[in-house]
């Protein structure tokens, strides 16, 4: 596929890229605003109620809070453009480095969860969706809606009760880096995430397959006598994947949110746990920096998800 600079596809992609950047800009603005708009002073919150005036002032100066808001915003943008997200008030490590150290772990187990969830969802969604048996569809939807409605920390608790406390198949918490040792600690969180994700993904895929099944071009494909494998991919799966892909990219953002809880429960040193510790310690720069990170990642994941879906299926509105 040749991309001429002014082909309609290129123009669309260009437009969406611009939009992604502009949304990211607003993400940064919002992160900035949230910190300033709320009552209470970050510095005194950090140092506690009984701190001395001078200490508070010093911290405010360090955080750049002693200048007027516009100046603050300008400084903020300047810092961001240099990639400087601030420094932790607790450890003194740069926020960027904290993220860099903790995100890979989170990314790893999320990615595995998505992969497994997708691989399991495809056969289930296609089998049940294509079968046209109302009873299968009904029971499947009921089961998955129960899984989705259950909060992930409760599933985690029950899983821990079952696997860690009553049997010793998984450690209750902790983490040991390096493959393959880390798998011992990661398998349960991955399994839990996979269960939740596959409930969500397979439902959408199921609905999509059911829609596809009633399309006229499928009928034409049957009459044309297309071979089984081809038919499966081009007439069943490919036309049904678009909504699933879009959903998955959206879910990535939501999943990042959910990691906060899981990492706390399992004491995994991922980015979610960093955020929670930062919140508990009123470590503003880390909270703000992590917020920006989450926001921007969600925007771009969404964007790439939409783009990928469009490349698969031109019916997607870009």
């Amino acid at each position, binding site marked *: 596929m040749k991309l001429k600079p002014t082909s309609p596809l290129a123009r669309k992609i260009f437009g969406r890229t611009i939009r992604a950047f502009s949304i990211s800009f607003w993400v940064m603005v919002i992160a900035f605003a949230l910190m300033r708009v709320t009552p209470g002073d970050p510095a005194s919150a950090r140092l506690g109620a009984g701190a001395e005036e001078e200490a508070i002032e010093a911290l405010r100066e360090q955080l750049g809070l002693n200048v007027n808001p516009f100046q603050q915003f300008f400084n903020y943008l300047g810092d961001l453009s240099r990639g400087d997200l601030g420094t932790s008030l607790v450890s003194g490590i740069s926020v960027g480095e904290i993220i860099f150290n903790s995100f890979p772990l989170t990314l790893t187990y999320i990615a595995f969860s998505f992969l497994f969830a997708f691989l399991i969802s495809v056969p289930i969604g296609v089998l049940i969706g294509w079968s046209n048996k109302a009873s299968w569809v009904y029971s499947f939807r009921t089961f998955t809606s129960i899984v989705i409605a259950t909060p992930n920390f409760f599933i985690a608790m029950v899983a821990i009760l079952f696997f860690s406390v009553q049997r010793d198949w998984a450690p209750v918490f902790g983490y040991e880096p390096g493959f393959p040792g880390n798998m011992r600690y990661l398998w349960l969180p991955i399994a839990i995430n996979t269960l939740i994700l596959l409930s969500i993904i397979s439902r959408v895929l199921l609905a999509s397959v059911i829609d596809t099944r009633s*399309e006229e*071009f499928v*009928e*034409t494909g*049957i009459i*044309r006598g297309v071979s089984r494998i*081809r038919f499966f991919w081009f007439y069943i799966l490919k036309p049904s994947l678009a909504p699933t892909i879009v959903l998955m990219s959206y879910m990535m953002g939501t999943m990042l949110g959910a990691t906060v809880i899981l990492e706390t429960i399992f004491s995994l040193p991922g980015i979610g746990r960093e955020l929670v510790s930062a919140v508990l310690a009123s470590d503003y720069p880390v909270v703000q920096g992590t917020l920006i990170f989450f926001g921007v990642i969600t925007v771009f994941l969404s964007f790439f998800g939409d783009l990928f879906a469009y490349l698969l299926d*031109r019916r997607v509105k870009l």
Partner: protein
Amino acid sequence: MTKVLAEIRDLRIDVRVTRRLRLRIVDTASLVINKGQLLGLIGESGSGKTMLCRALVGTLNRRGAYIQSGSIDFEGIDLVNASKKDWRSIRGHKIGYIPQSALAGPNPVMRIGAQLAEAVTQRGRKSKDEVRRRSLELLELVQIRRPEVVLKQYPYELSGGMKQRVMIACAIAQNPKLIVADEPTTGLDVTVQAEIMELLSKIRKEFDTSIILVSHDLQLINSICDDIVVMHAGATIEKLPSLKVTSALHPYTHALYDSRIDLVEPRGKLRTIKGQPPSVGKWPTGCRFADRCDFVKDVCRSTDPAPFMQVDDSQWSACIRHKEIYGGAK
């Protein structure tokens, strides 16, 4: 050598609506199509014409429908009890299908070239060059300009008329004996409609392909078809050469003809057929057109089912009173 290509006899099709409820949607439909014949199949919505076609191409079970009784014979193959092997030899090779243009058409996630290649390579492998050559040839046959460009495009980049031409190209790819065209021009501009009709006519002439053209537009069918089969409420009620449509032997056919739009004079009244066709599942006994017929008598309702009778070698009618009303074939 018989000139009959396919014959449907007294076909009954039921559909499974729910686990307990079954509805009859086609009741005593009979149809014969000869080699090289352009047969029009006309009827209002719900007359069963689409289902009849689905039975012919074997996609009834997708919608929970099945053949209750009757026979379909295609070139000696019994389609009612055909095996998977039989269907494999027929599909894409002996029977082609052109879908309703208003509903999608080509597969939206495949390029045109890929879909044509699919249609072209149904039987045995062909080299890439041969496939490409044949695909371009087909696109030119259906009068698509710049076929090399179209091959690389996706359906959403084409107009309605072009998409239909592509569907026609795919349908004729393997030179099938029979093409089933289910309302191929619905939703297209009038000028494009005429072009597509021209194209179908040309294909029939050049390749001696039989075509079943389904429509609800009598004018359209009249313009190019050799013969017309009329369906009403699940039954075939008349078969006649299109030239003889003015001397039809069934009140319904006459009513259809008389209600054509082009007959209306300025400020004149539009003639309609009174009433509605009976809904599926609520078919009355006897002739199902009885409630809407101007010539109805008691005997019409008591003769059940209304038999599809051969009047002469080119005309059939299901009206038991046709001799009284029209005085026999002319």
